[in-house]
């Protein structure tokens, strides 16, 4: 997939700063997300990956310039930004445990629940569970609900934060397939620690360290360069197939 020609940017982030109290978490992050394919946002723990996603959709206090298809969105409220076309899948799934699976979905679109075609296509496991309380689902199923509900709406861009964390190996593979499928129609900005998965589906990578972008480029090139991955991420891709 890495031979897709670079497309025009759908999202550009320029000089993004986030401060929490006294700590300066993002210190001028700048990068573009192409209008197609998967862009992976990588980095060690605590460097600001989640914060970057949150800042983009307005869940973190931010300064800088963020444009979605040329429109500045950095001063908009979260709900506006989301309705403007950015879907967000948070780090901890954050399904509404007290609501049923169906209600979780209808929250986004009152007319479409588990019977929506996209659910049947991507998450057949959920179809029969419309009336189950989302809180009693297993971790993997919750991850599906979390993904499914953003897919009900047409998005220009999806922000997805560590979707495979805590999932059983089999589910990791399944989720990777789903993401690859989704990426056919919608560009993704994906935070991921699982490098094999990155290698499998990502086109571009952005690496953050200490609140700044330290690398920006082709995914395959990074993964293929053990010295570079070691320098940027502290690991090399030696364990083929281990996930």
């Amino acid at each position, binding site marked *: 997939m890495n031979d897709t020609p670079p497309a025009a940017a759908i999202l550009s982030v320029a000089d993004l700063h986030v401060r929490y109290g006294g700590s300066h978490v993002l210190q001028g992050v700048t990068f573009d997300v192409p209008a197609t394919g998967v862009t992976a946002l990588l980095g060690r723990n605590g460097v600001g990956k989640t914060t970057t996603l949150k800042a983009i959709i307005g869940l973190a206090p931010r300064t800088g310039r963020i444009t979605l298809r040329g429109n500045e969105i950095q001063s908009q*409220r979260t*709900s506006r930004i*989301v309705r403007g076309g950015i879907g967000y899948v948070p780090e901890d799934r*954050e399904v509404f445990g007290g609501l049923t699976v169906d209600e979780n979905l*209808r*929250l986004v679109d*009152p007319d479409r629940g588990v019977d929506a075609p996209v659910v049947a296509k991507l998450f057949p496991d959920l179809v029969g569970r419309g009336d189950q309380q989302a809180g009693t689902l297993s971790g993997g199923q919750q991850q599906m609900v979390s993904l499914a509900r953003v897919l009900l709406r047409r998005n220009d861009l999806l922000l997805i934060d560590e979707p495979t964390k805590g999932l059983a190996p089999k589910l990791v593979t399944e989720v990777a397939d789903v993401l690859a499928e989704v990426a056919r129609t919608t560009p993704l900005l994906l935070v991921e620690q699982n490098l094999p998965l990155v290698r499998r589906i990502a086109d571009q990578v952005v690496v953050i360290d200490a609140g700044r972008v330290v690398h920006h480029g082709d995914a395959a090139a990074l993964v293929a360069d053990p010295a570079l991955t070691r320098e940027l991420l502290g690991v090399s891709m030696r364990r083929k197939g281990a996930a």
Partner: protein
Amino acid sequence: MSDLLLLLVTGLGLGALYFLAASGLSLIYGLMGVLNFAHGVFMTAGAYAGWLTMSDLPQSLPIGARLAVAVVVAVLVGAVIGLVVEVVLIRPLYHHHIQQVLVTVGLSLAGVAAAQGIWGADPRPVETPAWMSGTTVILGARLPNDRFVYIAVALMLLAGLLALLRYTRLGLVIRAGVENRTMVEALGIDVQRTFTIVFAIGGAAAGLAGVLYSQYAGAVSPGQGGSLLIYAFIVVVIGGMGSLTGTAVAAVVVGLVQQLANYYAASGVGDLSVVLLLALVLLLRPSSLKGASA
């Protein structure tokens, strides 16, 4: 026999009043995690609004009509106050539950004092339709008519609120927002507006409770809402913190227990019956009190 019937009906009436007072509280607590100490002031505001409306409308109108208008005005005033309080005081403190609660404590102090400053500390008489203060004799018991009104209104309110939460989109968003406000926002839903609406509904329920309670008491006074609030709190706790149905059941139980204890038990027991009831629930079913974590 006729005594028992009388006690049961008035006990139910009392339970209905408690539910009216507690419903808004329970709604706001259950959905927003804000224990609204200003709820008593909301009720007082409804009561005064009703009283002012009744006396300002031309006396030539039949009293029933004036009361109906007064109820509508009280509900509106309650809703507007709820709305303003949410937007001005609650919303900016959004991640700080305790502070939200504290602001309502301040409001309850200031509100009662303001009413006292404007209308005086003394109770003011409220006109009541003759029918409401009359009685209907059934099986030898003189049953006060107004109690039937309270019971009917309470039932309608309960049904209405349940339907709202269960069957409307607003209800769905509210239930989701209770669990995780940020995530609702991140799904593109303007959650702030929803919570303002919740507060307004709670305020409206308080306004309704206030005007009906002033009919029951035959007077309005600044501390009136507050005196009902303590029962509303207990009812909400026994009912399981934020469950409307639980609140309704608890209101009825508290009303009946209080009424029966006051008649059949020694004076001291009647006095403490509600507290004893709470202690009993606590000892027998502590888990029912843990409630939704807020």
